[in-house]
């Protein structure tokens, strides 16, 4: 056993850090640090900067224009970018669809879609969840009926993150009612501008329209947009889900959040001394920090196993649960740390460059909305209840 990174890995970390120092616009890192809204253009700007360096698609093979990093390199990149408050890379096209196309798509599809993914021509969103299905993804009700050289799609998708920015959506659709629920599902690429598609924003409890409902009413999709074989979509969907789970622990976000929390606790004053010197609040920070120190090592164990080619099993479910619990606790403590200034709920202040400033200190303005928004962490991507069942069944073989 050896907890130290290799010289090679250290050198890579240095490269990433130097790149971020030089290329990450302060305007963007300020927004991320303060929890202000990122516009479509912000993401596109950051994607372009990474693409210019060849680092936009770290997990793609070189032949497709990716960096072909191993799990440890991806982990280092993730650590450094979150520590520097870089915007996240929007995952739907690059982290989710890309690998599916590369593994199951046709050469034509890869030749056409992958470059557009890298150069930002297309913004993809995900058409997986449906109303009432919850974590039960296989219960796909949206139908696609073959009509000549088109599929006619009818139904509804929901929880579509940033769907309002997207011009393309990849969907699970039902092309057959025969056999088990998992059979008869197909994987379709759909242009959002096609007639019959309506996007309706869903406002969440933090007041932000982050997710959407997408309605399909006789939407005609060329058969060329079918990925892989008809009715084999479930295989591709599961493959995508395993990719969605890389960095499932969110160690980078947690570390950045903890650093921010400690900074605030040093600035806030309670009973005539810095809040961080209140032993009971310090204990809450220390408990989550100690849990994070351990979880980060669990994550490294899974990462280095993955780098050695082992596929993570129940471990990623464990990381999902523990990782989300830790991040949510950090959000709760950050909200607690800002005190009465967690109460103001001024949406405009989250708009960088709006003429409305924060009510209290700038570090307080997004504490409540981030706490509320991140309740989603334990719900989406397979709720923590589903993850616990997976863990128990894997170990108890029940």
């Amino acid at each position, binding site marked *: 056993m050896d907890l130290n990174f290799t010289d090679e890995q250290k050198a890579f970390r240095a490269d990433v850090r130097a790149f971020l120092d030089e290329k990450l616009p302060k305007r963007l890192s300020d927004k991320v640090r303060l929890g202000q809204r990122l516009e479509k253009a912000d993401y596109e700007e950051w994607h372009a900067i990474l693409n210019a360096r060849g680092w936009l698609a770290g997990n793609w093979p070189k032949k497709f224009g990716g960096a072909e990093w191993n799990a440890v390199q991806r982990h280092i990149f993730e650590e450094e970018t979150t520590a520097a408050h870089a915007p996240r890379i929007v995952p739907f096209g690059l982290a989710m669809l890309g690998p599916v196309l590369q593994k199951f798509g046709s050469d034509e599809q890869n030749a056409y879609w992958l470059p557009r993914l890298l150069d930002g021509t297309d913004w993809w969103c995900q058409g997986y969840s449906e109303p009432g299905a919850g974590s039960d993804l296989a219960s796909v009700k949206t139908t696609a009926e073959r009509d000549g050289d088109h599929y006619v799609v009818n139904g509804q998708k929901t929880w579509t993150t940033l769907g309002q920015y997207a011009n393309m959506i990849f969907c699970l659709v039902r092309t057959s009612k025969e056999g088990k629920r998992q059979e008869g599902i197909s994987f379709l690429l759909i242009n959002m501008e096609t007639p019959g598609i309506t996007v309706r924003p869903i406002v969440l409890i933090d*007041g932000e329209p982050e997710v959407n409902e997408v309605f399909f009413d006789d939407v005609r999709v060329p058969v060329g947009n079918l990925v892989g074989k008809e009715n084999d979509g479930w295989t591709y969907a599961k493959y995508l889900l395993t990719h969605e789970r890389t960095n499932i622990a969110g160690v980078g976000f947690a570390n950045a959040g903890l650093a921010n929390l400690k900074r605030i606790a040093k600035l806030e004053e309670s009973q005539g001394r810095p809040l961080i010197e209140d032993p009971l609040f310090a204990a809450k920070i220390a408990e989550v920090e100690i849990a994070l120190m351990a979880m980060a090592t669990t994550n490294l164990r899974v990462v280095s196993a993955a780098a050695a080619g082992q596929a993570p099993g129940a471990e990623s479910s464990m990381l999902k649960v523990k990782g989300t619990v830790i991040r*949510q606790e950090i959000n709760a403590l950050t909200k607690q740390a800002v005190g009465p200034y967690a109460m103001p709920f001024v949406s405009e202040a989250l708009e960088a460059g709006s003429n409305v400033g924060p009510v209290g200190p700038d570090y307080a303005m997004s504490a409540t909305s981030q706490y509320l928004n991140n*309740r989603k962490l334990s719900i989406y991507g397979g709720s923590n209840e589903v993850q616990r069942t997976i863990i128990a069944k894997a170990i108890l073989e029940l």
Partner: protein
Amino acid sequence: MNFDLTDERQMLQDGLRRYLRDTVTPDALRAAEAGDTGFSPEIWSGLSEMGVAGALFTEDQGGFGGAGFDLMVVFEELGRAGAVEPFTELLLAGGLIAELGDDAQKALIEQAIEGSVQLAFAHGEPTSRYDLERVETRAEAGADGWSLSGRKAVVVNGAQADHIVISARTSGDARDTAGISLFVLPKGSAGVEVRDYPLAGGGRAAELVLDNVALPKSALLGAEGEAFAAIETAHARASAALCADALGAMETVRALTGDYLKTRKQFGQPIGKFQALQHRMADLLIELEQARSAVINLCGRLDGPRDTREIHVSATKHLVGKVARLVAEESIQMHGGIGMTEEYSLGHFARRLSMLDHRFGDSTFHLGRFIRLQAA
């Protein structure tokens, strides 16, 4: 020993519950949020006519209640409905005027009980957090009155209030309990800069900047420099009110979640059939009863000796704060995605509950205070 409501309180509770159920609708809440008062003037006057304001004051103060269990009945029902009308501000500011005011000032109470004036209490400051004695705003005595300068933070109902009870230091330094005085500040006084904004839990608050604000001698409320005890008492009563409000909100959240578990199907059965959720719901119900008992404990001590009262303030604020977080987070989790949406009624209550800890001290602050009070 008796845990039943008196007939009067039972009637008040029944009437309130009926009225609020019919009036505090999702549309009414959206309208209140959109409006510039942050609450519904109609519901405010409707409740005042029902005597809700009167229930917060004793008979010699011009009301017909004022005991701890009167507060519990009123605020538990307001919380159950998710009402955002600023009765806590009436309790705070009105209570101080009723306790310390001269006859002229007490006239305000009568109007407040009628519902014709809005009140607020401006005490907290940008860096005072939950320390009640931390007052840096200063009041200088002049020949023909007072001159106030300083900043007040998150003054709930501050921009809407016709009169603001405001604390300022007339002697001592920032952390002394002695030397704090109270004044009645009329709306629109010259030299007061007001920033009005919405709150995550509903309603509105304001930041006040006072720059040599001139007030007549008659604006002084109670004896100069001796307001701290009254301020602490007012916060004890307001803390009981907030906790009772949270208790009511948790009952609604519990009911919403229970109904959802019964109706929502996943993997072919109502999710309420899943034992893991059943047991978490059971723990939630147990903690809800703990919170109810804690509120009873505090309301029963509000009129008792200071030390016992304050120990129960911190015990109750700690426990209810902890339970409110558990109930809000678990209810959202058991609902899943729908619980995250603004459209669904859970959101309003969950947000309110998540704000309980940010007024008058969070559960960690009060745990430490409970320990200090017991050691003292």
